């Protein structure tokens, strides 16, 4: 009994007839011819039946492919090809109208699968053009790769952990080396003040400092408001409303003002450092600089780090002032602590050291942000993806290191007792 299938597919290159496969099993003794209508799409179409008796000996079958054997219809054709069975097969391509490399791949893949079962699979009836294409594809099918050998999951994981730890350690050392290079350059520039790029320094001070004032002010003001509001709710229970001043002043001056400013600057300017230096690295501008006798650290990194060291404490002062203002306003509205009373209380009970402790940390945070941002920029390779990845690494790493440094400072100040 001979059967055939063909249908319209509406994929890829438009409505095309997919490859039809006529299968002549070994039991088929006679031949039939006829026409049928494709019921699935309702489009009238001639479906060819195989009219040949199997040429081979019993135990062989002929698979007769017709229509377009192209990439758009490939999956269709693949699904209709039978799995290799107990019989030898012959692939008859004499009715194939068009074949591309994908179609040729399918033919060869089928043949390979048949042969893998120890059966023969001959290809007949291919036009000279198709024969040539089949030959080209056959030559180019990559040998089954032996490289992807199965791995033990646990050892794989262990190796990943080890590699991550190693690269983390190496990165830390490299970053310390970079910090050393920056410090050395700073020493050199201090000895030769004429080499300091003043214009660049001022430009970066404006970019990092002045332009960040609005966002830093707003952030600090809102933090003050939140502290006052949350503090009021708790302190009112004890009738200790006036202590809200201590709460706001100590938390803002000592910790939050400078820490949150540093985080904002890390996100704003640290990322900008990485992106700017990284894109210069990508376009080989940094290499060009070196060949022209310019030191990239002196030209690019030092002005940025110095500008940060100079303006981050100033931004910290702005944040402190705005935080206190926000706190004072909310205390007035929520607790009835008048601005005068707030000021008096501030004078009496808050030591100036709280303010100093906050600001002492600022230059250290500045160095962390500047060095991490510039270092990550210098690590950018030739591709755009590494720029994006390292920019985000730069922000995450500098914020993380700022917080670590803040924790260390807390311990340090606790020990020295301020």
């Amino acid at each position, binding site marked *: 009994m001979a059967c055939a299938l063909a249908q319209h597919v509406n*994929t*890829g*290159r*438009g409505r095309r007839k997919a490859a039809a496969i006529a299968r002549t099993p070994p039991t088929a003794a006679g031949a039939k011819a006829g026409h049928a209508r494709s019921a699935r799409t309702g489009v009238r179409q001639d479906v060819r039946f195989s009219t040949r008796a199997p040429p081979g000996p019993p135990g062989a079958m002929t698979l007769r492919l017709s229509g377009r054997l*192209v*990439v*758009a219809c*490939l*999956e269709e054709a*693949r699904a209709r090809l039978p799995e290799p069975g107990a019989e030898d097969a012959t692939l008859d391509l004499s009715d194939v109208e068009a074949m*591309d*490399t*994908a179609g040729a*791949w399918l033919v060869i*893949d089928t043949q390979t699968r048949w042969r893998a079962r120890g059966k023969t699979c001959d290809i007949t009836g291919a036009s000279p*053009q198709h024969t*040539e*294409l089949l030959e*080209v*594809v056959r030559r*180019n*099918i*990559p*040998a089954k*790769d032996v*490289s992807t050998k199965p791995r033990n999951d646990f050892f794989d994981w262990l190796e990943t952990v080890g590699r991550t730890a190693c690269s983390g350690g190496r990165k830390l050392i490299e970053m310390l080396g970079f910090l050393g290079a920056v410090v050395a350059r700073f020493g050199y520039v201090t000895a030769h003040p004429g080499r300091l790029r003043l214009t660049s320094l001022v430009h970066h001070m404006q970019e990092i400092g002045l332009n960040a004032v609005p966002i830093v002010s707003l952030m600090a003001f809102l933090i003050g408001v939140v502290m006052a509001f949350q503090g009021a709710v708790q302190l009112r229970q004890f009738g200790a409303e006036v202590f809200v001043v201590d709460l706001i002043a100590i938390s803002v001056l000592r910790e939050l003002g400078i820490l949150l400013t540093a985080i904002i600057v890390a996100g704003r300017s640290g990322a900008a450092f990485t992106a700017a230096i990284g894109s210069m690295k990508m376009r080989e501008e940094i290499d060009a600089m070196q060949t022209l006798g310019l030191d990239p650290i002196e030209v690019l990194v030092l002005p940025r780090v110095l500008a940060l060291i100079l303006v981050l404490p100033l931004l910290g002062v702005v944040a402190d002032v705005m935080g206190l203002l926000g706190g004072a306003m909310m205390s007035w509205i929520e607790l009835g602590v008048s601005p005068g009373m707030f000021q008096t209380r501030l004078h009496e009970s808050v030591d100036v050291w709280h303010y100093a402790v906050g600001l002492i940390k600022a230059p250290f945070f500045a160095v962390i942000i500047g060095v991490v941002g510039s270092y990550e920029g210098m690590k950018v*390779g*030739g*591709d*755009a*993806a*590494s720029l994006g990845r390292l920019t985000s690494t730069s922000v995450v790493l500098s914020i993380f290191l700022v917080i670590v440094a803040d924790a260390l400072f807390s311990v340090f100040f606790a020990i020295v007792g301020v």
Partner: protein
Amino acid sequence: MAQPGDAIIQVRDLRNQFGSHVVHDGLDLDVRRGEVLGVVGGSGTGKSVLLRSIVGLLRPRAGSVTVLGTDMLHAPDDRRQKIEQRWGVMFQDGALFSSLTVRENVEVPLREQTTLSARTRVALAELKISMVGLPPNACDKYPSELSGGMRKRAGLARALALDPEIVFLDEPTAGLDPIGASAFDALIKKLQMTLGLTVFMVTHDLDSLHAICDRIAVLAEQRVLVTGTMKDMLKVDQPWVHEYFHGPRARAAGIAED
């Protein structure tokens, strides 16, 4: 089915303009089925602009672009997309997606435009990568780990992923060493012969023109000044064309025999 030799791409009366700067004005060009057409011209004559207008990356100010019998500027989107699947474009530096490996890059068109299973996709991608002459270990590399020549080959593999009828190549040999460039020329010719491709190639490379182009189109004076075979080019009197095909580099390439 179209006959070999008929115009597969017809550009008529094309006008491209950036602000007041007119790049093309009244440009006509035919690309015939099965040929390798080399487009040459001085810097700034709009070779790449022409390529971008044909593949639809740039909408021309006026004129018509007909590809495979479809007016690309006025056809509905779905019809245009069908035509777009029948061509592949290789950009100058490959324009590979840098976040994907070479194999994944070649798989992108297969993934987007067909419903092939993952296994078939991988097999076809590896086949294409091997056909453009890249070693199997290149499959899992990222574009940044490849040399310029390998990136171009990978770009070509991606352009060929869907077995297109037309391939657009933007300066395929620019930036390659002479040996790599002639190897790339040979590759293009071989693929063009076996796959029956029509190739539209923007190039500066006289060796490429000589080695693989069936016809050459010269862009100058805001239009296609002249088209024809290399022999025809040598007879053209226009100063730029004459200089181009009779200059010292042309002599070195063995084109002009003075």
